[in-house]
């Protein structure tokens, strides 16, 4: 009790010292004079609030320990199928009734879902801390941008190449790096992300430096452009369908494509988890020495996770380039890597549903709270600290599907 009193007093004192210069003392201009206005009651009040909070905190923590976030109820396979189909149908239909802004935001969310699920393979399944994930995203985006600029590729021809290119980069980077463990791997991948960004800025002759590449075409519908007027003599989508041109068509189309890509990513990562390679990732994460003694090649197995994760980042990047119509190195800063990692950690490493929820949360919330834009990073940090303190396993912790033996 005495110790608690002491710590609470110290916390209150620190609060008073911190708050006093910021809120307690205010310099006001009155004509030519500067007046120092004091607001002691406010300082005392904040100190008192902190003191009381520190005193009752043990009681609170006792309360929260009993508080439990939901764990997903186990569903039977048939239920699972129907629920999935229902959600999918809803996601397919709603953009036709939603506003243009909402559909656009949903497209952004889906890009982050795809990136989050991709990084989840690396961090969640294989347990490799990758801080340079955005590097692969950039490789994908620039692959499409450059293929368009120098070879006139369309989105659909470039998409597989963007994925393959990012996967190749993942493979080349992973090969020497995956012998490293934990922190070392994190640092090297962090450096890799920065190298890619700096290359994009400085290879001016190819990437056009900080200005980036613009005028990247949007995806076509079976070769039909979704613009007001087609280049050359081609028929556009709305002419072909006999509709009037409407700018929201392309928005909905992009949304549906992002949905398709996200669903493919979800399906693949879901399968991977149940495949031998998924088991091997799990085993390797738990005990590398035992895994090796059973003949599992650690480098090869980790490399597969790294390469697959990079590939999805590449797909995401190509789609991002198509949606924006413009790529520049500004879009691929470390903050972006941190955001994607935050999605994975917040969602619960390895948990796909958690990652999807976190992607929605971390993308939609800043949009809703636009008036607090300056506090965005602060809030972001606060959420992370609170999560780590109270629920380090994430929103919806992973419950790996086990292979069940039917007796």
């Amino acid at each position, binding site marked *: 009790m005495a110790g608690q009193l002491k710590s609470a007093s110290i916390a209150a004192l620190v609060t008073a010292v911190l708050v006093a210069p910021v809120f307690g003392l205010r310099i006001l201009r009155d004509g030519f004079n500067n007046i120092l206005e004091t607001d002691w009651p406010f300082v005392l009040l904040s100190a008192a609030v902190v003191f009381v909070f520190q005193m009752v905190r043990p009681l609170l923590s006792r309360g929260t320990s009993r508080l439990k976030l939901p764990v997903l109820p186990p569903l039977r396979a048939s239920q699972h199928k129907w629920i999935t189909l229902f959600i999918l149908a809803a996601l397919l239909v709603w953009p036709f009734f939603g506003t243009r802004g909402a559909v656009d935001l949903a497209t952004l969310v889906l890009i982050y879902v795809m990136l989050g699920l991709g990084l989840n393979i690396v961090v969640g399944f294989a347990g490799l801390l990758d801080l340079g994930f955005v590097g692969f995203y950039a490789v994908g985006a620039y692959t499409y941008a450059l293929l368009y600029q120098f070879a006139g590729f369309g989105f659909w021809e470039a998409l597989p190449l963007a994925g393959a290119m990012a996967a190749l980069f993942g493979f080349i980077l992973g090969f020497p790096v995956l012998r490293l463990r934990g922190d070392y791997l994190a640092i090297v991948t962090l450096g890799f992300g920065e190298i890619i960004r700096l290359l994009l800025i400085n290879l001016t002759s190819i990437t056009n430096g900080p200005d980036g590449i613009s005028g990247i075409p949007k995806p076509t519908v079976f070769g039909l452009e979704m613009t007001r007027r087609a280049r050359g003599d081609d028929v556009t989508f709305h002419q072909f369908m006999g509709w009037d041109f409407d700018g929201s068509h392309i928005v909905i189309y992009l949304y549906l494509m992002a949905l398709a890509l996200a669903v493919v990513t979800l399906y693949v990562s879901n*399968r991977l988890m149940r495949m*031998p390679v998924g*088991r*091997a990732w799990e085993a390797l994460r738990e005990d590398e*020495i035992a895994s*090796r003694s*059973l003949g*599992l090649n650690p480098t090869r197995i980790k490399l597969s996770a790294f390469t697959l994760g990079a590939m999805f980042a590449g797909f995401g990047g190509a789609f991002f380039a198509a949606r924006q119509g413009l790529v520049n190195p500004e879009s691929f800063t470390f903050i972006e890597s941190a955001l994607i990692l935050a999605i994975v950690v917040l969602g619960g490493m390895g948990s796909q549903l958690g990652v999807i929820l976190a992607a929605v949360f971390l993308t939609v919330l800043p949009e809703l709270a636009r008036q607090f834009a300056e506090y965005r990073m602060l809030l972001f940090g606060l959420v992370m600290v609170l999560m780590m303190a109270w629920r380090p396993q994430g929103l919806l912790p992973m419950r790996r599907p086990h*292979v069940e033996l039917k007796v």
Partner: protein
Amino acid sequence: MSADPRTIASAGDDALLTVDALSMRFGGLLAVDNVAFAVQRDEVFAIIGPNGAGKTTVFNCVGGFYKPTSGRIVMGGESIAGLPSHKVAGYGLVRTFQNVRLFKQLTVLENLLVAQHRRVDTRLWSGLLSTKGYRRSEQEAQDRAVVWLKRMGLIEFANREAGTLAYGHQRRLEIARCMVTEPRLLMLDEPAAGLNPQEKRELSELIDELRREFGVAVLLIEHDMSLVMGISDRILVMEHGRPIMTGTPEAVRTDPRVIKAYLGEA
């Protein structure tokens, strides 16, 4: 003749595992000094010695966890010295660990599935599309696992997480995980540590059966003398990294050098 380990090693040219002039140096410490032995097919061969004699270091060299400073390790006619452990496993040589190393969060069944990683269909496409061949490969792996779970009396725990098993069961699961890979040489690092007398009796029966039914050779490190003396065909005694002698349990039991190593100067 049993006095000189070198002669035994050279005599066993058709041996399953031949270790010759093996040395392992950590900085200034010579942990293993010129050790040689050979394990015959379906033989139970034990390595004993006081703590710090270098037994586990020999294991780690043979298993590919350490790169020996010098020496020859030949498995079935092929040199495996210096190969990484995951390649060594490919020669049919698997091991258990002094302190059990299971994948605790995987189920008992999955532990045995992971062990078969080398032989199941791990191709990406067949798994993603769940082809017929892939499903068959998974089913066969599961069937092999079930055979061993039944054999080891662990079938009722198949869907439990391995970390939740009782210690004795964990020990058995670790052996099952090795056996499901169908090894030629099973290396057991103190398998009886922490087992009660009843479990120890079961273990020695198990080792004997594995050797007789499946023709697997066993290389064993163990401190429990009654177990070692009961099941071993031959024993290598080590002290301070050096081999003292190799011989049958009777020869070892009566050898004055062994008694001196264990009890000190009389």
